[in-house]
């Protein structure tokens, strides 16, 4: 029953799976993002309060959700690598980090552009924005720590520990709008009960979310191939894999 789990610990298997997944994930992402953008920009009706500006939700919310999801993926892979000493976990974490950092920057910038017309300011020291900024610093710390060590395996393990410790920030970001009186809007999708958004606006958003997820999967697989190769350069299976 657990054979699939053991197979995932094998670098050549993971390399092969990643290579096979890329075109499917990219194709699916293109479809989902395509529909989401067209429906979100042109078909969904303007919002009662925010007018056309609400359309920024279609990039801001998926990038923010992804910034947290990717960190969780990175922290989980790191914990698996530390606890069970599965080296592939380090490769996944190293591959995920720059993608997650870029999504965090995207979330902060799109949020800032949305905040200016809605709240009157490009930035506010509000709990959600602040904790998202902290998330960016955590990503930067993990990436810097990994590259600071001459021994890559030691760097992997140190970065893995930091990623695992920093995961406490993820629930803080998510629940900050509940725990504190926040300027930022509360949860509309990821909450108990029915989403508080009409269907014509919701479907493009869900599609964009799916598109971003599939895109992350595709880019992760591309990076993962590179990370696995960098760590397994001396292994025999690599000879076949990199034949020109």
């Amino acid at each position, binding site marked *: 029953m657990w054979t699939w789990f053991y197979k995932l610990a094998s670098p050549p298997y993971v390399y092969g799976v990643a290579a096979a997944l890329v075109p499917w994930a990219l194709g699916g992402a293109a479809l989902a993002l395509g529909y989401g953008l067209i429906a979100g920009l042109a078909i969904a009706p303007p919002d009662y309060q925010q007018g056309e500006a609400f359309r920024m939700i279609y990039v801001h919310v998926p990038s923010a959700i992804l910034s947290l999801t990717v960190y969780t993926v990175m922290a989980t892979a790191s914990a698996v690598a*530390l606890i069970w000493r599965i080296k592939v976990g380090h490769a996944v974490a190293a591959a995920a980090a720059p993608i997650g950092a870029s999504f965090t920057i995207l979330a902060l910038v799109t949020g800032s552009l949305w905040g200016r017309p809605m709240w009157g300011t490009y930035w506010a020291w509000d709990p959600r924005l*602040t904790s998202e900024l*902290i998330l960016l*610093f*955590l990503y*930067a*710390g993990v990436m*810097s*720590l990994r590259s*600071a*060590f001459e021994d890559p395996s*030691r760097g992997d*393990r*140190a970065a893995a*520990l*930091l990623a*695992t*410790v*920093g995961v406490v*920030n993820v629930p*803080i970001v998510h629940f900050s709008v509940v725990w504190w009186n926040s300027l930022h809007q509360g949860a509309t999708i990821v909450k108990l009960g029915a989403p508080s958004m009409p269907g014509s606006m919701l479907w493009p958003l869900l599609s964009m979310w799916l598109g971003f997820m599939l895109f992350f999967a595709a880019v992760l697989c591309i990076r993962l191939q590179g990370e696995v190769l960098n760590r397994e350069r001396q292994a025999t299976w690599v000879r076949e894999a990199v034949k020109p």
Partner: protein
Amino acid sequence: MSVGAVAAFNLLVRRELCLSFRRPDQLLQPLLFFLIVTTLFPLGLSPELSLLRDMAPGVLWVAALLSSLLSLDGLFKSDADDGTLEQLALCGQGLTLIVVAKTFAHWLVSGAALVLVSPLVGTALGIPVGAFPTMMLSLGLGTLTLSWLGAIGAGLTVGLKRGNVLLSLIVLPLAMPLLIFGASATDRAISGTNAAGALYFLAALCVFTCTLAPFAATTALRITLE
């Protein structure tokens, strides 16, 4: 002759304190830094006490954070450099006990010292005497939490050249919630409102960190020592 865990702990703490007091200048430097940094704000912004009082919680906490970071670099460094750390790790008491002892001793000479000096700084920033107990309690809880977060960072960066900048980059994001609640507690005490909520949260953060950080710091050291 085998030594019990409590006796070993006491021995280690006493060793750390002994070593620290042998170099009194190293003890005083972070405290002096704390005093100097808090002086910078009235000079740079405004000497008006009423204005300073509004900024005082933030200034106090940022200065405490920065001066704690200065002394954290040395938590494991000197022992790691001359091989004592490996000897301690092998001595059979368990690396976690050693980490707890070292971090506690470090807090005694840095964080606790900061708390004792804080009334001076508080007066300089115009904090009313009535707010001092809350200020000192929040600083005490905060610096203890910070010592533990710093122990994780120090464990991760102990072998690196110029690891102290990276240490700050690692510790500061983790310390931000601390800063928010610590400053909030002091702020409420100054304005006279009930600071209990913020203090409870600080205490919760402290307990959470003090229970989990020792294991993280030990793992960090094991990664570095291997």
